[in-house]
């Protein structure tokens, strides 16, 4: 139990809550229910929450599954620095965003779900968790320097490397026994 990362669960909940807010808001605006201004707000809040929660945070240990295409939003969320990194701020933000949607029947479920997510984020913050961006690992180029040797510059038959090192390169075949043309 000691190593549970609560933030990951809070993230799933907040994303789901954002979608619920969005759906409830769209239904209320389309049906022109009474108090549809709350619904319009809830659409905006839902979109904001979804965008904020889409990039998953990096786990402390082990590899993290990225959501499809999250690297673009990661770049944006990273820019906000401590505002998005700190989970206390996220907990308060979600709690605040959730309240106005509670006044309309079709979005009240979104309020409660976002409220629960906010509570779990608070728990995560108390346990010292933080949002860390998942960085793209730079593509490892094959190391050409140390292990790969330069190709031989002289044609075969080639003397062994020791012999080559002892004698200076004369830019061509060096005969160990002088050849006399007859």
């Amino acid at each position, binding site marked *: 139990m000691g190593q549970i990362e609560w933030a*990951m*669960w809070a993230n799933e909940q907040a994303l789901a809550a954002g979608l619920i807010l969005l759906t409830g808001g769209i239904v209320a605006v389309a049906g022109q229910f009474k108090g549809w201004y709350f619904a319009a707000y809830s659409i905006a809040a839902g979109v904001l929450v979804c965008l904020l929660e889409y990039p998953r945070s990096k786990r402390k240990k082990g590899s993290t599954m990225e959501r499809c295409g999250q690297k673009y939003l990661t770049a944006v969320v990273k820019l906000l620095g401590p505002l998005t990194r700190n989970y206390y701020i996220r907990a308060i933000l979600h709690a605040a965003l959730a309240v106005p949607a509670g006044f309309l029947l079709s979005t009240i479920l979104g309020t409660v779900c976002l409220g629960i997510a906010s509570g779990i984020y608070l728990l995560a913050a108390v346990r010292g968790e933080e949002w860390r961006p998942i960085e793209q690992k730079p593509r490892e180029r094959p190391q050409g320097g140390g292990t790969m040797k330069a190709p031989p510059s002289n044609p075969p038959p080639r003397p062994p490397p020791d012999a080559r090192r002892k004698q200076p390169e004369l830019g061509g075949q060096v005969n160990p026994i002088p050849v006399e043309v007859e």
Partner: protein
Amino acid sequence: MALSWRSWLANEGSKHLFLFFWLSLNVWLFGKTFLLYNQGLQYYYLHQMLGLGLCISRASASVLNLNCCLVLLPMCRVLLAFLRGSQKVASKKTRRLLDKSKTFHVTCGVTICIFSVLHVAAHLVNALNFSENYNEEFVTLNAANYRGEDPRKLLFATIPGLTGVIMVLVLFLMCTASTYAIRVSNYDIFWYTHNLFFVFYMLLMLHVSGGVLKYQTNLEEHPPGCFNPNKTLRQNLTVPKALGELFPDYTTEPFPEDPPVPEPFAQNSFTRVCSEEPKFQSHFPETWFWISGPLCLYCVERLYRYIRSNKPVTITSVISHPSNVLEVRMVKDDFEARPGQYVILHCPRVSALESHPFTLTMCPTDTKATFGVHLKVVGDWTERFRDLLLLHSNQDTEILPIFQQRRYPNDGWKCYKLRRLYFIWVCRDIESFRWFADLLCMLHNKLWQENRPDYINIQLYLSQTDGIQKIIGEKYQALNSRLLIGRPRWKLLFDDIAKCNRRKTIGVFCCGPNKISKILHKLSNSSNSYGTRFEYNKESFS
């Protein structure tokens, strides 16, 4: 890769057939209930009040009934293991279908979520309509107390409403904790929230006992839409459309779209006069019939598992393998298991609540009751378990060198249908092969002695070549010559195996990451020119 219809049918056929059957059942239930509430005379006045919301909410409720009943059954693992292992009951097709029980559970769970959304939305509309269309004529039919009552009171201050809201929250918690990402990273969250299902079912029992929606009982005496001479014609008196069409002269107002009244009733009700007021009664909660059976079955199963797990297990030896792998051998009274099954280990000294599954690497036989698991130390539970075992190593366990505990392979060759085994093992680290190096060598030697050298075909693949200089050792000569560098080329492997076993049926058993599983699945379904059929099976825990 071309698809082979024979292979596809063998691999996917029964699964898809079963799913098709289940889907048809759901569609039929939805349609039947929808039409019942849309056209049924006993719901005529209720339908007038609530409209489409009534039909959708009741239809989705019936689908929810079915799925809440079915979702528990695949989780009765002891029962399923019994069915699967019993040779009298199950054929191979049924056994392979039973292997898919977890997928079916997930399918039913997702259906419950989707139809819950539909059900809740429809009931929200119903709450609004109960409030706005308060029926002064038939007061008992109403759920609201007066016209224009706040619909939120109907939602939160009634038993069905409140239990429904809490059920939605429980479902929300269960759903968000069941995603693949959470199961893979924090299994505990998934496990503990999923056990809230019991709260969900208790609330469900209460939810349906509210009896808010009523049906009319005295259809003979009061056919809906009948003529009541004691009441004056009011402006909003609606005449069923069927009657209006029959006698157009007698209707002065355009009538709204009404549920069609069947012919006999139409004629009767026009000529008949209402002899009495309609009487309404709540349904008996049929959900209780749907869910009580599976819920009891599942509770009995959990109780059985708990009682069975209370008997302690004695650890007889602990062997430390390279790459952080521990082999634990144990004995337990009356324990039977077959190859391929797994056990769940629970060690109260390590953690009071956690328990973890491990596949059996050694099963108890008739002559030897020891069984064993190999576990890799990756998380905090396995770390603490290893520390505990090594700490207690002097007291009641012994760490025996690998050779002495040899009694592989299991005694006696029973008559298996297995003709040949291709064992393909892919590892990243060359030291990992040591986990079963002894077992494999012994098996190879034994088969060599019994003149069946081609019974098992071992291929070891090393996918990363970092520590290649560490050779596994001279005593594992048989394995050294079977070691290949790089990942296996599955297509070539399948072609090779197909060529050597023409027209036979080959079972593919995959235990590994999803990527490999997908490739093998696709290859098992594709065609080859040798007439060989591959049946695909896979094992997954999360």
